[in-house]
């Protein structure tokens, strides 16, 4: 699946998007997998209360299932308007 990062999450991880082969069944599982990869991921995901997640472009929460998901995005709380 494609994993996207925005704003300071993108800067901390160092890339806007990557393709990941994963067997994670929930967003939390995917986060755990990413954190185990490298320090920069671990740092970016250290405080999940500071993050929001969208699965296939719909806002959801970290318990959300990933079955059939094509795109997961992580970003800070939005500041539009």
């Amino acid at each position, binding site marked *: 699946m494609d994993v996207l990062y925005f704003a300071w999450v993108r800067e901390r991880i160092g890339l806007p998007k990557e393709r990941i082969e994963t067997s994670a069944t929930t967003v939390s599982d995917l986060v755990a997998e990413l954190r185990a990869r490298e320090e920069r991921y671990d740092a970016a995901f250290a405080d999940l209360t500071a993050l929001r997640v*969208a699965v296939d472009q719909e806002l959801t929460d970290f318990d959300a299932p990933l079955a059939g998901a094509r795109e997961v*995005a992580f*970003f800070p709380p939005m500041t*539009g308007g």
Partner: protein
Amino acid sequence: MPVSVQDAPFDYGAECERFASGRADMGAVVTFAGIVRGDGDLARMEIEHYPGMTEKALGEIAEKARRRWSLGDVLVIHRYGMLTPGERIMMVATAAPHRRNAFEAADFLMDYLKSRAPFWKKEHMADRGEAWVAAKDEDEDALSRW
């Protein structure tokens, strides 16, 4: 549902004129413009967004407003990219038979797109420092009004 996410500036006067024209059935039009406020030594405001999700989220918010306040029409324009103080970031317009619905719907649209549309603002200061704008609790709390 007219929603536009664009890097180019928009002509606020022309958009308002077009939106308010030819509406014998709508007695009220409300328009709102958001402007980059030049706080402190802000040199530029950068706006990042999530292409695809942004259009979808704005469309859903606009559709929700249209149904809830029986609007005749809604318009949302939101820019992204590098803006300078004084530039218009975004606008919303609502058309309804009576003014209260038009005002409330515009207020609702602003509250929702501040916290539920995937935009992120970064401030670039004149001394070259930069910082992401943190979301405000009051903006999130504002959603509970609706």
